[in-house]
């Protein structure tokens, strides 16, 4: 059964529902983190990959792992599009995660510019995963613009605060026919598990792992939590009684037929 539970993004199929970030930690640990996480998709900031130095992140990512370059550093749609082109030229493939941020304090995404960039890049054949603030109307616009998945934030990037936007992410899960991947703000495996229990299709995490005492152990913990949350979601939750239990005499007893 579980073998058939695939995550499909832009026609590509994945067994893992854990998207791992590659920022903020030692390049030497990336391979081990990927192994422990059993991740099949890894994000990388193009601005970090765009380097001449010996320490090029691209050299540390094992073959066979799908690269998801992001457009961090872009302040508007135009800049995101240029970074996406650069990523393609550098051989990062067709996947692109759109990040448009024009706020240096909270690093919150600019939804309007994200829609514009998504539309252009989807037309150019990119598999576009837009990072966004969870707003249903925007998610619909992104879907119409050709997004391959929607990546709503749980909390501000790096805040490790968990699912602050839970109710709104649930609406996206219920209403949008694309994979919903929670990105940003997930600080603990339990929060990742909670997101998966809600029916989210995948979870992306970086800071929580990058800043853990043991990067590899935390990567493994996230993997288990994400799998547990997915299994729980698929198995269907049991009935949870409201406070006070069920009414003993039926409210519909007055009906004559």
């Amino acid at each position: 059964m579980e073998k058939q539970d695939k995550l499909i993004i832009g026609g590509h199929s994945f067994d893992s529902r854990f998207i791992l970030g590659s920022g903020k930690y030692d390049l030497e640990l990336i391979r081990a983190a990927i192994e422990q996480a059993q991740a099949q998709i890894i994000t990388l900031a193009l601005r970090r990959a765009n380097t001449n130095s010996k320490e090029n992140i691209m050299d540390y990512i094992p073959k066979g792992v799908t690269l998801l370059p992001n457009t961090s550093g872009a302040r508007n749609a135009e800049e995101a599009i240029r970074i996406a082109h650069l990523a393609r030229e550098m051989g990062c493939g067709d996947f692109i995660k759109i990040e448009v941020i024009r706020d240096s304090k909270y690093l919150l995404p600019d939804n309007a510019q994200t829609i514009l960039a998504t539309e252009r890049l989807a037309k150019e054949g990119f598999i576009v995963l837009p990072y966004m603030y969870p707003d249903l109307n925007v998610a619909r616009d992104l879907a119409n613009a050709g997004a391959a998945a929607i990546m709503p934030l749980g909390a501000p990037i790096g805040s490790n605060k968990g699912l602050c936007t839970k109710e709104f992410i649930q609406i996206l899960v219920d209403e949008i026919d694309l994979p919903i991947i929670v990105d940003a703000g997930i600080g603990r495996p339990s929060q990742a598990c909670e997101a998966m229990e809600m029916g989210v299709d995948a979870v992306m995490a970086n800071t929580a792992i990058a800043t853990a005492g043991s990067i590899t152990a935390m990567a493994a913990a996230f993997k288990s939590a994400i799998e547990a949350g997915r299994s729980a979601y698929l198995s269907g939750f049991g009935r949870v009684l409201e406070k006070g239990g069920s009414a003993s005499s039926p409210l519909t007893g007055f009906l004559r037929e």
Partner: protein
Amino acid sequence: MTNTTTKTDHMVYLKDMEVLSDSNIMEQVLEAVQCYDDTLYTAEDVKNALAKENRGFKEFQALLSPAAEPFLEEMAQKAQSETLKHFGNSISIFTPLYISNYCENHCVYCGFNCRNAIRRAKLDINAIEQEMQSISKTGLEEILILTGESRIHSDVKYIGEACKMAKKYFKMVGIEVYPMNTEEYAYLHQCGVDYVTVFQETYNSDKYETLHISGHKRIFPYRFYAQERALRGGMRGVAFAALLGLHDFRKDAFATGAHAYLLQRKYPHAEISFSCPRLRPIINNGTIHPKDVGEKQLLQVMTAYRLFMPFANITISTRESAVFRDHVIGLAATKISAGVSTGIGSHSSEKSQGDDQFEIADNRSVEEVAEAIKARGLQPVMNDYVYI
């Protein structure tokens, strides 16, 4: 000696200096710093400031006050966790490149000042390229181009040519030169520059006036509004600093933070960076010594910056010892210079053509600094930037 009666009004703009008539950030900062009495804060205020998640001027003032000194360990712990949250384990490395040390200003504390009898030099474009080649070989990808503040010897065109050359060898180019007008910043942005650093030195305009005897640097408000003009010229990031020790360092540190805070509120996309220089001894002036601001006070300032603006970069200067620098990276600082020489032409030849701006305390190479970063469990990052 300078006759004080001939000194110009330091608050009046000179001809050709652009005035941002629609901005009042300087007035706001000066008013806020005037109201700051650091003796009024108590241990209770410091505890409250530490407990808060988002800190405003009041909390920042408490953290900079003498009452916060006994809480330095707590400040350091909180600062480290904020640094980790916002920057992970990454520490950026860069180096400054001095291309000219001519200066038209008489600033009493600076080795480059026009009255100081030092060897002057200005690198031509070939010499600049040689310097850049040498630096590039060390693996660095971020460079900060500096000049003395002379519009005659290092005009905007000259700086622009140096920056275009820098784009060939480096991913990220910043400048620390004299303040200029918006359109000049826009020109340098086209040449590849994305970061502008201007030290206000001191935010006390009366003290400023006594230290900057002559030259265009004397004009306090023109310097103050440099970062705002740079952002309007299209620059991505701006850096701020007071030269700690010139005046009351607590007030100057508060003003530096307030300046950056108000500018970021007005230009939310702006990337903000702080430097924390202390006074250093210079050639021909043995009386200058950073005695007022000890390492403890410097760390208090750095952690207060981190707690006030957790997302801002903090650069740690080679003015400080290797031991101090190694301990503050990841704790509060996120950027460190390496392979530094403040003389002119000393990267590509053994003997410099021009003298140094100040004495440095940490002369380790790029490789040595990178190893020191790794030894602390952190990751040296040569580039985290794309010019678009």
